[in-house]
Each structure stands twice: as C-alpha cells, then as structure tokens.
C-alpha cells in the first residue's frame, strides 16, 4: 500500500525534524541535552502565538521559530550550558531535566495546560490522490518531507564540506587541546548549540500540527527523540535520517497491518537494532 508507505515516510521525516537538533547537540557535541524538547516546544508555542495573536502567515512562522529557538539556545548556552560541557553525563542529565521541568511548569503558567491548536493555511490542508486513491498524500505531509530533505542536504553540506564540522568534532574530542591549537571552542559550541536549538524550534513548529502541543510536550516526546538518535548513531546527520525513516515506516506499517501489536513494534525494533549494532545503525566507519 503506497499510502501507508507515504505516511510512514512522512512520519519518519517528522521524527527526524524533531530529533535532528538533538543529534547535533547530543551526537556531535556529546552533550546529553534532555531539554531538547523544551526548545521544540518553544518553537511550537512561538508559532501558535504568532499565528493566533498577530496573524503572521504560517510560512513566516517557521523561520521565526527557528530564529527564536536559536536565540533562546544561544542565550542559555552563554549563561548556563557552557558550564556543563565538562561535567559528567549524569550531571548533564540532571541539569537538562531540571531545565525541562522548569520549562514545562512555566509554559503551563503562561499558556495554560490545554492543547494548543494552530490553523494551517488552506494550501497545506488538502490532499492529492493518485492512481485511483492507491496513493493519497496529505499536502502538509508532503511539505514536511520537502523541508526535511532540504534540511538534510544543507546540514550535511555544512558538516562535510566545511571546516566547521571537523572543528566542532575536534572541540568535542578534546576542548582543552583544541583551544590550545587555535580553535575558538566557545564560539564553535555556542553556534552549534544555537543551531541545534533552532532546529528543535523548527521541528516543534512543524510538528505541533500533527503531534499536538501542550506544556508536557518536552517530556511526552523525549522518548521518540532519543530513539531516533540512538538508532541512527550519533556521528552523522544521515544516520538519524535513515533511522527515523525506518522507524517511521515500521511503526506506521506495523500499526496498519498488525494493530494488535500496537507500540511493541517500535520498541522491539529499537532493542533488536541496538543489540545488533550497539553504536547505532549508521556510524562513521570505524569511528565512534
């Protein structure tokens, strides 16, 4: 069934968009940032507020959500996160969970605990049926796929073709020596973190439509972000993309053909993959 395949791809792409920022901060910077969802939520709420209160068109909201979340990320990076890089992973977990808790409660306080719903523009709402309905594609899902593809290409280019990628990885491997060899570690980290947060914000803005948006968003979807990054491996951008696609298709197809198995499928698949390839499915050759 082509429609199921399409839905699976779209769902996978959505997971990817939400998780790609995390694979930047966690995968590339080796920082366990469980507050990732909070940035996504910030992007989502920003979009909702812009659309509802100021009637900003949806397409404009996306870059604004990116920029907003990125600024927030940069601000927090400069004030709080940068003290955390050298701490053990467990402290990072504690810290970022703390931030998540704070963001959840604050959002609840300022925006209320009910679901936020946004209205898409007309042209994103329709649906195209091909071949007598054998393949039905929701326009919004098509849109997500397109954005996602563009993002992947862009990120991959930056990481593979510019020195930024290797400087970043060098800083992560050994910040002390990287700085001693002239890499502006602080700047590299701040920029990366901002981009990671921005991507989260963008993901939140795009995902809120399908997933819904309420103050528990960061906690509710944390598991999904983590699954994608874990299965995809933490050393590239394409890894999480394939992982997200795989999981998306498996989940949608599984629920369609074997609805009784419900959510067993994703979890079992994840465990099986991780036991088989403990470094994740797609890792840089020989590296870690």
């Amino acid at each position, binding site marked *: 069934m082509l429609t199921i395949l399409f839905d699976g791809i779209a769902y996978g792409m959505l997971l990817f968009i939400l998780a790609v920022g995390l694979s930047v901060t966690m995968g590339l910077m080796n920082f366990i940032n469980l507050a990732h969802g909070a940035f996504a939520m910030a992007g989502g709420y920003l979009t909702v507020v812009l659309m509802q209160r100021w009637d900003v068109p949806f397409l404009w909201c996306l870059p604004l959500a990116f920029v907003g979340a990125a600024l927030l990320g940069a601000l927090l990076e400069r004030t709080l996160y940068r003290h955390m890089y050298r701490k053990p992973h467990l402290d990072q977990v504690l810290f970022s969970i703390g931030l998540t808790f704070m963001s959840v409660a604050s959002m609840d306080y300022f925006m209320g*605990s009910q*679901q936020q*719903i946004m209205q898409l523009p007309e042209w994103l709402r329709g*649906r195209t049926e091909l071949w007598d309905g054998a393949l*039905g594609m929701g326009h919004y899902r098509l849109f997500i796929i397109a954005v996602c593809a563009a993002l992947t290409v862009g990120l991959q280019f930056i990481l593979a073709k510019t020195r930024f990628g290797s400087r970043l990885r060098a800083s992560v491997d050994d910040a002390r020596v990287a700085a001693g060899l002239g890499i502006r570690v602080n700047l590299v980290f701040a920029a990366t973190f901002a981009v990671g947060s921005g991507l989260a914000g963008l993901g939140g803005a795009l995902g809120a439509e399908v997933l*819904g948006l309420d103050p528990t968003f960061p906690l509710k979807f944390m598991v999904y972000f983590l699954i994608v990054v874990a299965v995809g491996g933490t050393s590239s951008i394409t890894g999480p993309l394939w992982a997200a696609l795989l999981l998306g298709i498996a989940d949608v197809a599984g629920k369609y053909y074997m609805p009784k198995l*419900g*959510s067993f499928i994703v979890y079992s698949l994840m465990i099986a993959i991780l036991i088989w390839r403990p470094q994740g499915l797609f890792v840089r050759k020989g590296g870690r």
Partner: protein
Amino acid sequence: QDKFKIGLILPMTGPFASTGKQIEAAARLYMAQNGDMVAGKKVELIVKDDTSAADVTKRLAQEMVVNEKVSVLAGFGLTPLAFATAPIATQSKTPMVVMAAATSSITQASPFIVRTSFTLPQAAVAIADWAPNNGIKKVVTLVSDYGPGIDAEKYFKDRLTFNGGQVLDTLRVPMRNPDFAPFLQKVRDLKPDAVYVFVPSGAGAALMKQFAERGMDKAGIKLIGTGDITDDDILNSMGDVANGVVTSHHYSASHNSPLNKKFVAAFEKANNGLRPNFMAVGGYDGMRVIYEAAKTTKGAGGQALLDAMKGQVFESPRGPMFIDAQTRDVVHNIYIRKVEKVNGQLYNQEFATLKDVKDPGKAR
C-alpha cells in the same frame, strides 16, 4: 473541630493537568458562590497533585485522612488512582467523591465512593442508540488502549449490535501514539458509515485534524464519539475540522438553562475566559453534593455524610441529575450534540436528549 476539610487529589501536572485545573477551578467557584461556611464550619480545600502514580495517590489520601482528618476525599482523574485509594475510603469510612474518572466499575471498589462525573458506558450507549436511527449502520471503533477506552468500545459495540448495527473492526490506539495515520487509513479502507472514537481529550484535536486531512469526510465517513473528543476546553480552537461532528455526552457548555448560563459566565470570568468543560461540571456538582450532605449532617463525616450524599436530586449546570442511592453513581441526561458555530465560536449544540441514563455497566 470547627473545620470541614475536603481533600482534593487531582492530576495537576503531566498530560492530564488540564483536567485538574478545570476541576479545581470549578470547586473554588462553587465555594466562592456558596460561601466557605457550611453547618457552622469553615470549609477548607486541600489540593494535592497525584503525579499520575498510584502509590503516591494512595499515600496522599491516607495522609489526608490520618493527619488532616479530612471529611471527604475528592477528585481522582484517572481510574487506577481511584482504585488504589478505594481501600482507604473503606477502611477509614471516609466518603470519596469521584469527580472525573469515568470507568464504570469504580463505584464498586468501595461502598464509600460516590461519583458526580459520568461513566463512559452512559455516553457510549447513548450514541449507539442514536446512530442506527440516523443512517449509521456500519461502524469502526477507534479507542485509546486503556480502561476507559475499552469500556467505551465494549458498550458501544454491544449496544450497536443490539440495535441492528454492525461493528466492522475494533481498533485500539496505544496511549503513547503521536500519529493516527495508520489507524485512520485502516478505517478508510474498511469504508464504514462512521468511525466511533474515544481518545483522551487532548489527542482528540489531533485526531480530528488528521481525519479531515485524510479526506475521510469526503469519502463519506462520519466521525462520531463520546464528548471527550469535542472537549469544550479546546473545541473552539480546533477550527473547521470539528464542525459538524456528532457526539454524545452529559454536558455541553452551551447547555440551554439559566443555571448553566450563570455557571459558564461565572467560570469564564474567574478563569480568564477559560470555558468550563465536563470535568469542571463534575467538580462543581461534586462540591454541591458535599456541601448539601454536610448541611444535612451538620458537618459530621463518615457514614452519615455518605448517606446524606446518596439519593441527592438536584439541578446541575448539565441539567437534572441525581445520585443513585443504590449504586452511588450519577444518573443524568445524555445529550446528542453536534458541533456548530454560534456567534463565531464553536459549541456542542444539543439536539436530542436521553433522559435519566443510569450507568449501563451496573444494569446487568
């Protein structure tokens, strides 16, 4: 003792936080309207967050009984939490007023439980009665895979089959489920007259959007369900996708009665324009039941208070209701409603009434 304490245990954080907020707000509204003195005692409301964990809920209840000496335990957003607390009510002979949880069997867990919300079978059966008479014979059910969802599925299916309809398939959606696509596609491929839906209120919006996006309405499939999916709390922001959806429930914010108009206005005023939903009315009526019972017993608690709750008959914002003295469960009208735009706002407009519906779960 010159205080009459009510221990209100609610989900104040987490995915069901809006339930807790609605109920707390309604309870406070009731107190504001009716004064905080009853039978010469000052009413004190102690609110606790259940954190969605059964052991914590039970401990909180136990502490409130033991330390605070509350006369009534109230609230309870989720079925297992109510079940976990039930033995405390029995052991300490403290009446326990369930204001939200809707699984049928809760009231059987302890003779001290009284319910003022509703039961899912009540709503499910009502729409199952309505559907076959309105051209809906073949239905696929789509429910969340947990207690209330399974209740909703079972009672709907039985009654629809009894009424000569047919349930083509029963789909259960896992609780953690971000995307309804595969389930909706399945429904679409089964080509029923309608899909009957029960999901917790937040997820309802997402579901309805995806329903519309998939072009299901255009394919001639109707969306029906219990009122949870067109929750007044968020109905208005759902937009066109909700327009025209038919559901059955015991309460709509647009219920046409002076009492309700007053209630809605007061609630919105006190809560920044937030519209009360069926949770709020459960909390509001719960407070009413407690207040009136306390008046009867002159502030005494225990068995006497419980007895004074049983059999209360009164006019609620939802319409007439009473507490069945036998089952301690709520009996009220169930309305069939359709989402419509009124003054630019979406409301569940009631257009048919089933009178005095008892919980079908206890009928057999």
